[in-house]
């Protein structure tokens, strides 16, 4: 029972991880850039919903468009003001550039909101839980899982079924060929950043319902997202979905596993260590990921 419960909880949180990692993998697929500041977009999305809820008394779930919009604007702004310049330089400069953006947003949040831990305490679903059969789900986590799935499906539909989405895919597969087909790749890059920022903004808005927002929260989730992206294969969208769920299950099962065999060493404080280790092992053993399409 404990195991099945952990499994279900893992799937719910895994759906959210998949949504966080989605933006990272889209950006990576389209322009081969790793966005270290991705976790900070998430953090700002969390704060956006928190403050809307705090000042305007709007339910956190209804405040999601605010965080989505903030994420999209952030993505767009960082593309036009920073990433475009970084693209001209060597790879090392690109890494450091997004790293700088990450530090900047972290300490901007520290400056504006202080280092306090903040969590939403009022809302329709906050503090409620539902029992389905023998299993009890927290309302916020259930909503986060379901809404993540819906957001993911919308983006997936957009990328695979609409003309613009297909153009984006074409840019990811071969930039030069896409240019010859009349696709404005610069705009596609910007679009990738908008999608990346928007989805992670939504994820942040969902996360703040049951997780503390603080300026340094991003690094933890960006590492999880890196693990998902590596597991799914860098740039693969289907892959990142399954990988997110797998990582979610891994994270939830690990403490349960430790509990079952009665080992203190496998306690919950190591559950993220496992994620880091997983990343390391995956990229070393199978760099193309489980469902990879790009090397």
């Amino acid at each position: 029972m404990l195991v099945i419960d952990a499994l279900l909880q893992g799937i719910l949180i895994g759906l959210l991880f998949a949504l966080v990692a989605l933006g990272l993998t889209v950006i990576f697929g389209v322009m081969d850039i790793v966005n270290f500041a991705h976790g900070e977009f998430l953090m700002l999305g969390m704060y956006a919903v928190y403050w809307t809820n705090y000042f305007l008394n709007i339910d956190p779930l209804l405040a999601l468009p605010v965080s989505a919009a903030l994420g999209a604007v952030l993505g767009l702004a960082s593309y036009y003001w920073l990433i475009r310049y970084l693209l001209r330089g060597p790879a090392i400069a690109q890494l450091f550039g997004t790293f700088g953006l990450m530090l900047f947003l972290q300490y901007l949040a520290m400056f504006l909101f202080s280092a306090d831990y903040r969590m939403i305490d009022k809302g329709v679903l906050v503090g409620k839980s539902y029992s389905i059969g023998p299993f009890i789900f927290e309302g916020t986590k259930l909503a986060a899982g379901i809404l993540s799935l819906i957001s993911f499906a919308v983006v997936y539909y957009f990328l695979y079924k609409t003309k613009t989405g297909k153009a984006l895919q074409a840019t990811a597969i071969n930039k030069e060929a896409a240019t010859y087909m009349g696709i404005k790749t610069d705009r596609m890059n910007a679009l990738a950043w908008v999608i990346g920022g928007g989805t992670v903004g939504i994820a942040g808005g969902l996360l703040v319902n049951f997780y503390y927002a603080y300026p340094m929260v991003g690094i933890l989730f960006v590492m999880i997202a890196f693990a998902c992206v590596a597991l799914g294969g860098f740039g693969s969208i289907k892959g990142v979905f399954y990988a997110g769920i797998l990582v979610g299950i891994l994270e939830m099962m690990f403490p349960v596993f430790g509990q079952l065999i009665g080992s203190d060493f496998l306690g919950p404080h190591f559950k993220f260590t496992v994620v880091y280790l997983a990343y390391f092992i995956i990229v070393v053993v199978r760099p193309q990921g489980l469902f990879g399409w790009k090397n």
Partner: protein
Amino acid sequence: MGSFVKTVMIQFMLFSLFGMGWNTIGGYGGQVELGKAQYVGIGAYTVALMMVWWKVPFWISMPIGILIALGYSFIIGYPLFRLKGHYFAIATICTSLVLKDIFDNWNLVGAAKGIELPIHEHPDFLYMQFKSDTYYYYFIMGLFYIAIFYMNWFRKSKLGYQLRMIKDDEDAAESLGIDIRWCKIKAYSIASAFVAVGGGFMAVYNLYIDPASVMELSLSIKIALMAMLGGAASLWGPIIGAAFLVPLDRFLGSWLGGHKGLTGIDFMIYAMLIMIVSAYQPKGIWGIIEQFRKRGR
């Protein structure tokens, strides 16, 4: 020399040492390495633990720390250098965070509380315990000069040339018969040894270490940043970077310390610097100097 200036100078030389170490793999080798803090930790913990447990003098425990760092870097470097670019950079962060998590929870080594070094009543050269900063100052200065001479030799050594070749074009380097992976591992180990020396020094100088101070990700970033800002792949780059950032750090720290509500501004200025440098002059301050020198000719 005032004691404040001396403290800043010690920090400056310590970070130059770290930066020069990082420069072997990160600068000359062109591999974005963001996990140097784990070697600071290894150096610091070896010295501290051996002193606390077995009263081993600093002069013996520091070389042992270097050896452990070398061994560990070979073990971890072997799988690590199957990776390139972004994959490699993230993997180095991962290994560093795993080690920090372990030390954070391992009661034998003090867990998150850290360890305090026993304080001797009288100054003791063997244990590197002095009443005044002056001795530490000259000691780190000695290391600093050794590092400069070593780096000057290194950049003209066979390995130095091989690394630059690898950085420019891996395929070409391989076709010339250079064992790429082995070269990178060697450079990585040299970098680790440098950093472990600095870590050992940090333990005896601060007399207290915990995972948050010697293994934090921000330390890895600072090390790479100083070298990058000053100019990676140049002899003077890391030194210029440290000479620029360490006093800035101190100045901002003491200036902002008096103004409540301004926390974070110092790092925001840092971050702006990183973004501007990577967008406009990835070769750093040394790159700008080179540009002017070429124009002058």
